[in-house]
């Protein structure tokens, strides 16, 4: 049994191949320039990486701050079993965002310029600062798991170090850390919406709105629990830790309220500026709009309010998938599909652009797999109380 558990399943070797392919493309990019591996152009300077890795990646990492907030600030102990996996995925999500940016930025080795040259009026400055600080906060929030794992390990040098000391330090500042995480996430999720505020003339009116930062924050808060449901269901499948159904249905119950508020705000805003008619007339953009609203907002609101769906693991899982797909649809619409291009250009991602994005996701899945193998992820935290 133990033997079987330690061996590398077939999935991990496929993942490793994808990681290596992504790395190869990355090396090719740094020798030959962005033009060699992408179909990005002066007409479409931001493409797949910004829409998928940055816009979707950050939003899908929202489970970290929503769950940490629920458990440590609102003290909803029921959700404690999912807080560690949620923080781990958030941390990995942010690491992926940073790795993707290292490929996407023209000269990523100058990224530190953002620390010394502040343009406080730039939404991207806010995004950059939040990515850096929040990744650090997430690493610290997750670090007790690592210390706990190291503490139990029997490796020669590692076992001589008293891991309870750093572990105790982190526990002492845990609440300020969680609060910092919530504050940074609020700013960061909304600042991705603020970034689009500089494009009032090129972003389609169905998406452009002065309240975009609020809309982006709300959808992120809604997708956080959905993402946690999605991951924990899958990790149950793969690793066999079974979660109580009432944890999942509890998470599912919150989502319709947030999505409902989002839908109301979005509709009221369109009505306030007199653009509500566009949802019927602005072909073909209105199809994209209806697509994201039906898949990601209206259907989940209906399904999650049905008790039968909330009580069934399958129902909760698939409805969460809808929320996630709807959010990704929304982020792609707002950051690429409904964002005008300079005349005379076309864009469809190069296969190497896909290779980078897929390679990064494979990276994360591998790390998740390793963490579940070697770190106490699922465990109840109180079991390992620090007494030092």
């Amino acid at each position, binding site marked *: 049994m133990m033997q079987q558990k330690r061996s590398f399943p077939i999935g991990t070797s496929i993942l490793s191949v994808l990681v290596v392919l992504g790395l190869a493309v990355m090396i090719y990019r740094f020798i030959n320039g962005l033009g060699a591996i992408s179909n990005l152009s002066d007409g479409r300077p931001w493409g797949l990486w910004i829409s998928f890795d940055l816009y979707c990646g950050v939003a899908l990492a929202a489970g970290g701050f929503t769950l940490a907030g629920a458990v440590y600030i609102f003290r909803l102990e029921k959700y404690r079993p999912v807080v560690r996996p949620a923080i781990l995925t958030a941390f990995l999500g942010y690491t992926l965002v940073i790795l993707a940016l290292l490929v996407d930025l023209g000269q990523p080795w100058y990224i530190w310029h953002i620390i010394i040259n502040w343009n406080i009026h730039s939404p991207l400055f806010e995004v950059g600062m939040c990515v850096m600080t929040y990744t650090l906060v997430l690493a610290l929030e997750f670090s007790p798991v690592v210390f706990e794992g190291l503490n139990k390990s029997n490796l020669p040098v590692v076992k001589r170090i008293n891991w309870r000391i750093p572990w105790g330090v982190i526990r002492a500042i845990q609440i300020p850390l969680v609060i910092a995480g919530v504050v940074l996430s609020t700013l960061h999720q*909304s600042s991705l919406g603020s970034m689009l505020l500089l494009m009032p003339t090129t972003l389609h009116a169905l998406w452009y709105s002065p309240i975009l930062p609020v809309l982006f924050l709300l959808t992120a808060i809604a997708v956080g629990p959905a993402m946690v449901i999605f991951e924990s269901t899958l990790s149950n499948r793969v690793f066999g830790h079974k979660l109580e159904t009432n944890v999942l249905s509890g998470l599912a119950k919150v989502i319709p309220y947030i999505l409902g508020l989002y839908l109301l705000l979005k509709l009221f805003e369109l009505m306030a500026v007199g653009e509500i008619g566009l949802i019927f007339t602005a072909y073909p953009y209105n199809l994209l709009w209806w697509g994201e609203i039906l898949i990601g907002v209206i259907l989940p609101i209906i399904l999650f309010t049905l008790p039968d769906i909330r009580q069934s693991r399958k129902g909760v899982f698939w409805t969460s998938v809808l929320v996630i797909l709807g959010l990704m649809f929304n982020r792609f619409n707002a950051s690429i599909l409904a964002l005008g291009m300079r005349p005379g250009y076309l864009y469809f991602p190069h296969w190497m652009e896909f290779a980078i994005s897929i390679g990064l996701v494979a990276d994360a899945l591998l790390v998740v797999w390793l963490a579940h193998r070697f770190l106490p992820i699922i465990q109840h935290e109180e079991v390992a109380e620090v007494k030092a």
Partner: protein
Amino acid sequence: MTVAVLVDANRCIGCRGCQIACKQWNENDEAIPTEENGVLSKNRGSYENPPQLSAHTWTRIRFTESDYNGKFHWVFTKLQCMHCEHPACVAACPVGALTKTAEGPVIYDDNKCFGCRYCMVACPFGIPTFEWDDPLPWIRKCTFCMERLNEGLEPACVKTCPTNALELGEREELIQKARERIAASPDKYVNHIYGEKEVGGTSWLYLSPVPFKELGLPELGPEPVSVDAERAMGAVPPVLLGVAATMAGIYWLCKRRDKMSQAKATKKEASE
């Protein structure tokens, strides 16, 4: 007191001397459009070339054939950075690599940029370009020949223009001059100075015999594009403090609630 250039499309003869002067002065002679280096123009049936601005072409002339008021017009529009009064690129740049100078030009500093390309996405005129094929890429765009202006010279394109279609001057004076020109021959010009009001005003001003929409210049309102983003960024400090305080408050309340219920439970236990 800011410098500006007035472009009079009625005076332009489409010689493209400005394109060449720009390339010469800025040493942008790479990627000259030939079949060998793969950048041959795809613009067939036109003298317009190259087909787009690029990191090696900071200005170009667009050729437009237009039927307006029952008359045929062949109009030449010079495209380059508009040097906005309220530039979106300057608001966008996270590291302040782009700045609006007091004299008027919007200039770019290699030493700060790290290649995020937000300026390119934000520009309502679609001007900044990127060195896509360079492993050490920078943003490139018209500099208004800032170093020439500093020496009291005209920009290279203005200097070379043989018909005075490009005129350098003080912005308010040029607007006045443009108004007079429209008034003097209202049948030759549409009554619109492009760039006077667009996105809060630009340092490049245009006169044309046909509506600017026909020339492919974007139709833009008088409000700077950075207004909503500025408002959102202004809300950041209060949101930061507000969320932090709210979260701390909720934590305190929830902790107290748990303590109270625990105390109640132990009290109940004790009394039993």
